[in-house]
């Protein structure tokens, strides 16, 4: 695929450019299986970069997360570019942002990396509990190799990979200035894990399922904030005037929150799974988004974040669009 030295070398090269402010990648975390997003400012910082199945944040979210603060009088804005390590899903997020004009292509440098999927820490921790020791992991064919305190454990990737990654059809970047390493052969047919099962369940069963899930939500908004597509400066969840969703934590308001978020992701969600991975309450948010991804695919043959020249789903109209579901 791609070795770390190649990535570090290229990262050094990129941050040495005058027109680049920094490169966002990952570095080792402080314990267990954690890695943390990392800003490479100077060439020597690149030595700390890591790239492994543990890199589970979608870095595209940082393109829109930085606060735009007023500059002190007389200070010129820093117009240098932000470089980003992107895998298939990260690049799809960037592409979606490009089509929405959320990000200016001229302002980003995309360093593409092939990816064989990231681990879902929840799956990993059940059988391989986290320790203080900072662990390493790597892809090895169809396995994930965990390296904890020098001891290597080979795990079939089906056991620990994030559900989204198991069915990923975009393991290679769809947009990048340069992609390192060898392309990865896609391994999955199109499918939407967990969706069919719910679709086949009765209305009452589905209701009960989501009631139980949403009741557990603590409204920390980690899902929203980790999502590269949630970048509204004035989110309706924060709004008080008017108040669309009450701040009380109960099933009803929590459900309204999740429905509102899901609706705003229709035709925009790039199936990276970041929302579900960051949820401290373990709500299977991917199932909601995947259902909508599936609907948009089936009804409009649209797949967000795959065409940098494309038009956003909600901004496109085709007289031949299906209407059979409109009441």
């Amino acid at each position: 695929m791609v070795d770390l030295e190649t990535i570090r070398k290229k990262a050094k090269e990129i941050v040495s450019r005058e027109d680049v402010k920094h490169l966002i990648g990952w570095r080792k975390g402080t314990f267990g299986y954690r890695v943390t997003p990392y800003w490479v400012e100077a060439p020597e910082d690149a030595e700390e970069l890591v790239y492994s199945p543990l890199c589970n944040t979608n870095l595209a979210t940082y393109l829109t997360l930085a606060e735009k603060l007023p500059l002190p009088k007389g200070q010129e804005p820093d117009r240098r570019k932000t470089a980003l390590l992107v895998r298939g899903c990260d690049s799809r997020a960037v592409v979606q942002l490009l089509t929405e004009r959320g990000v200016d292509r001229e302002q980003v440098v995309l360093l593409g990396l092939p990816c064989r999927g990231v681990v879902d820490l929840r799956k990993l921790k059940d059988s391989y509990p986290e320790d203080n020791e900072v662990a390493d992991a790597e892809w090895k064919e169809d396995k994930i190799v965990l390296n904890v305190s020098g001891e290597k454990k080979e795990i079939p990737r089906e056991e620990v990979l994030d559900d989204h990654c198991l069915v990923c059809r975009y393991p290679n970047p769809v947009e990048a200035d340069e992609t390192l390493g060898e392309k990865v052969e896609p391994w999955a047919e199109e499918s939407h894990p967990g969706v069919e099962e719910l679709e086949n369940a009765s209305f009452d069963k589905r209701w009960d399922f989501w009631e139980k899930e949403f009741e557990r939500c603590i409204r920390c908004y980690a899902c929203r904030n980790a999502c590269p597509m949630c970048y509204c400066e004035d989110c309706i969840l924060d709004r008080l005037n008017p108040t669309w969703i009450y701040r009380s934590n109960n099933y009803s308001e929590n459900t309204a929150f999740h429905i509102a978020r899901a609706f705003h992701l229709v035709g925009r969600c790039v199936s990276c799974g970041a929302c579900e991975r960051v949820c401290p309450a373990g709500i299977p948010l991917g199932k909601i988004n995947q259902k909508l991804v599936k609907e948009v695919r089936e009804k409009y043959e649209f797949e967000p974040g795959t065409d940098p020249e494309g038009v956003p789903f909600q901004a496109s109209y085709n007289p031949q669009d299906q209407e059979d579901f409109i009441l």
Partner: protein
Amino acid sequence: MSEKVLQKANWSSFVQALADARELWFPVKDGPIYKFAPYSGDVDAGLEEYAYSSVPPKAVVLPQTETMFLYQVGDKEISLPEEKKEKVVLGARPCDARAMDIVDRVFQWDEDDPYYLENRNKTAVIGLACNEPFVNCFCTSLDGSPGSTQGLDVLMVDLGDKYYLRSVTDKGSRILGDAESALEDASGEGSQAEEIIKEAEGKIKRSIDTEGIREKLEEGWEAPLWDEVSRACLGCGACTFLCPTCHCFDIQDEVEGFDGRRCRMWDSCMFGEYTLHTSGHNPRPSRKERTRNRISHKYRYYVEKFDKIACVGCGRCITSCPVNIDILDILSRVKEEL
């Protein structure tokens, strides 16, 4: 003080006796996480599997959402919510009880907070000592211990086939009295429990020397460190909502039809909206200031007011952070770099 022993075989009758006397709150598994919930009659749900609750038991005394008063829109009459019930929390970790002691001071300081204090005064806490500390525990750095009794009414220690229980307060003795039929008198189990706690203490791997942090936080206000440690922050509320000492809240009026209520709900200093003025001005405009405030509140502001650090070393903020922002990492950098 009374010392008792509970044979695990008698677990069901113990739990039932507690539930008969008071509203019993218990760590229950909800999806992949544990949280405290009113006991539902499922006595098989023992504490064997339970490690710690993702949502701390502060939620029992400071519920995430709490009605302050009710009214009819257009009317002037205000009515108070129902009186709270006597509660017992079973299985709180000692750090979480110490956290309640920290929150108590805020709600008793200057003016009393009637909602919190009613809840707190009506709640007894049976703590469960930690035989096996968790990966990010550092309670021993903050005068805590896996067997600390501060904030507890009863301390319970797992001895394998039985639990050792010791009441710490009069309330605790009364609680044990309620469940007397399920308990036996202790005979020497106390020292066994002490040994287990001591052993557990030795297993805690993470630590911080808190000496001098308060002063450094004051001196290093503008340090570049704050930019660096807050950069990856997503600005979510996981660290604060799940923190057992975080107690900040929002107050909102919520109306359905003509039924109105004023309620309060957990709020987080990590949210931009928390300090946003209506004018659009925000005194803490970015994640940098918010991160600095979160750390400073715990390790400086609270200390200046109550002479105590508002952190118990439970490690939840570390474990639950989606991007591995680690308070111990920040604190050690504060010590080294500021």
